[in-house]
């Protein structure tokens, strides 16, 4: 006959079924709360899942998959252009900001991505510090100032009217200098969009294809944000950014790209326009231009590989659908809801942990007689602690594993509920769907978690329960075992 660990657990369970079940239920509640907190706190998962849903919707519509990539703590979005049915353009903005990466420097051996330059001049003279990466970022809405990424420390942000009218105003980073001097509100800056050197017969030529004088209306301070995956890092706007109303950027880029390449390059994807001559030298709104001209648009693979001047290699062309969207607002409402859930779960966790600790302490105090018997049989204090800790941790382990599984299931339901309750998301899905309304919600994909994220959440949840159980047992028993045992052996 063996009396190993399993046998001891079985014996103890047989002897104290009711108490064990009660404790187990409360441990389950603790585990579900901790599990939900770990899962739902990661809003990136929610965002990723939502975006994936929209991807699927686009695919279901017969269009190319809307490719949404994460870049640090911020996804970069793609632009899609209308099809021949003249639908509205789709622009997705994360926190109401769209980035235009102006790629140039096309050389005959290929090029690398991600470099764009603007040459700044101030009143007179040219700035030559073009070795730093400056970004001109097009802002589509005055709402951006409410994001967490910038703090206006002098002057103001754009007004909606200025953005609508493509006013030549800019907001710059406090660290930006021109000719070694800080920029002030009221300064006029000449903004130039220029290319990297292009080589023709060995000679480097730089194209400056957009120049305008813009007034500095505000100075911002960039902040760092906490990213769940990468920790604290600079927010998307770093200290080389110049914000400008979006419409100004579009006109500038479109003209030149159309001229040069018969296509536009936006966010790492080239979009080729058929009948591009219609758009040449257009000075009006890009969206309107495309949407009213029934362009047929194809994508060419992103990355810029093997693209030479004046010639494009088409790879994987596909038809695209477009629609308009204010994704930033959607994500903010989703964030708010998931934060609310997190608070609920956190409170639930604390409450159930306290309840569990109190109940376990009560149960262990009732076992003083039993503890004394072990002591009189020769079990030392450490052995007594491990005996009970082992038992309750085994109980806790089963509760926490099942609890986490329950938490995962609940998180799926909550996610679906979150999406259903978000009018913005619903509106987006319905617009996208072009299918039977009401079917949209049913086709929602589950809250997706990466395997590593799921494993981390599960580990935290299970470990959290076990640590709490062990700590409670330890503290209770140390209290009971404190002092001379003989005094407690009340005749046994």
């Amino acid at each position: 006959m063996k009396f190993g660990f399993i046998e001891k657990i079985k014996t103890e369970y047989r002897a104290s079924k009711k108490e064990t079940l009660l404790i187990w239920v409360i441990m389950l509640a603790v585990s579900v709360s901790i599990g939900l907190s770990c899962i739902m706190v990661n809003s990136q998962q929610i965002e990723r899942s939502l975006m994936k849903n929209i991807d699927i919707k686009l695919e279901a519509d017969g269009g190319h998959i809307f490719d949404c990539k994460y870049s640090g703590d911020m996804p970069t979005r793609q632009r899609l252009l209308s099809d021949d049915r003249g639908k509205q353009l789709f622009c997705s903005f994360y926190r109401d900001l769209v980035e235009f990466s102006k790629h140039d420097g096309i050389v005959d051996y290929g090029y690398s991505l991600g470099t764009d330059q603007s040459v700044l001049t101030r009143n007179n003279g040219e700035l030559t510090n073009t070795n730093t990466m400056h970004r001109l970022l097009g802002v589509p809405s005055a709402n951006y100032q409410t994001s967490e990424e910038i703090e206006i420390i002098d002057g103001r942000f754009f007004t909606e009217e200025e953005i609508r009218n493509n006013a030549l105003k800019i907001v710059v980073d406090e660290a930006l200098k021109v000719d070694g001097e800080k920029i002030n509100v009221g300064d006029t800056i000449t903004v130039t969009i220029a290319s990297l050197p292009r080589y023709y017969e060995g000679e480097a030529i730089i194209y400056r294809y957009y120049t305008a004088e813009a007034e500095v209306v505000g100075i911002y301070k960039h902040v760092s944000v906490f990213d769940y995956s990468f920790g604290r890092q600079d927010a998307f706007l770093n200290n080389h950014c110049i914000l400008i109303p979006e419409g100004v950027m579009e006109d500038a880029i479109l003209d030149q790209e159309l001229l040069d390449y018969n296509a536009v390059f936006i966010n790492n994807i080239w979009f080729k326009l058929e009948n591009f001559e219609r758009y040449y030298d257009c000075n009006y709104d890009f969206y309107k231009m495309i949407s009213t001209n029934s362009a047929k648009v194809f994508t060419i693979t992103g990355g810029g590989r093997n693209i030479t001047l004046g010639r494009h290699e088409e790879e994987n062309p596909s038809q695209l659908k477009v629609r308009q969207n204010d994704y930033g607002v959607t994500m903010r409402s989703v964030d708010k809801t998931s934060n609310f859930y997190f608070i609920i779960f956190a409170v639930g966790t604390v409450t159930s942990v306290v309840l569990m600790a109190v109940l376990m302490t009560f149960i262990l105090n009732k076992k003083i007689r039993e503890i004394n018997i072990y002591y009189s049989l020769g079990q030392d204090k450490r052995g007594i602690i491990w005996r009970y800790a082992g038992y309750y941790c085994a109980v806790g382990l089963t509760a926490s594993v099942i609890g986490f599984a329950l938490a995962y299931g609940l998180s799926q339901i909550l996610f679906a509920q979150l999406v259903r309750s978000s009018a913005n998301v619903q509106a987006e899905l319905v617009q996208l769907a072009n299918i039977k309304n009401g079917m949209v919600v049913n086709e929602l994909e589950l809250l997706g978690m990466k395997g590593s994220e799921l494993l981390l959440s599960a580990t935290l949840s299970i470990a959290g329960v076990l640590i709490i159980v062990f700590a409670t047992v330890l503290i209770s028993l140390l209290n009971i075992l404190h002092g001379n045992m003989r005094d407690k052996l009340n005749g046994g």
Partner: protein
Amino acid sequence: MALLEIRNLNYSYKDGDGKRVIFDNAEAEFDSGLFYAILGESGSGKTTFLSVIAGQDNRYEGEVIFNGKEIKSIGLDKYRRTAVSMIYQNYNLINNYSAVENIAVAMDISENVKGLDKGKIMSVLEELGIDEKKANRKASSLSGGEQQRVAIARSILTDSPIIVADEPTGNLDSKNGQEVIEIFKKLAREMNKCVIMVTHNDKLAEDCDFIYRIDEQAKKIVR
């Protein structure tokens, strides 16, 4: 050399502003194969003495020597696991465990026993009048006499050379009480155990090989 020797035992504790002395240089010796009684009035220090020799109380001065070694140097936990087994007036069984489980727990803790033999447990219990059905019931559902027999079986099966009993017949009727005394005698004489029984009952003590009396005035143990 005796199996268990008590030398210069001094035991006292704070009593309000003063100090109450229980033992003052008390001495005693115990050997294997003998059945001892410790007699004394209530409050004379019988239970204190038992607690000291059972390794449950270390607030004494002097020496308690087991097989030539001071029990504090052996380690009181180890001493309790290997050398001594206690039987209490109220049996001290884990109520929700069965008789077999109570014994199994004790054997598991004891360092004298390698492995558990359920057959042996049942055999000892049968000898003591506990059949298989009763052996698998919860200890709390057994009668007082049966519980005390289970406690005795526990002591036998942990194979401790010293068995210390604190008023073992206190909660039993005279028939059961007498049967317990007979078992103790057998343990001492046939199994070569050193059985030390604390009692205030002179009549029960008559069955013992040696009687120690606690002299409350002199704070000593007198044979």
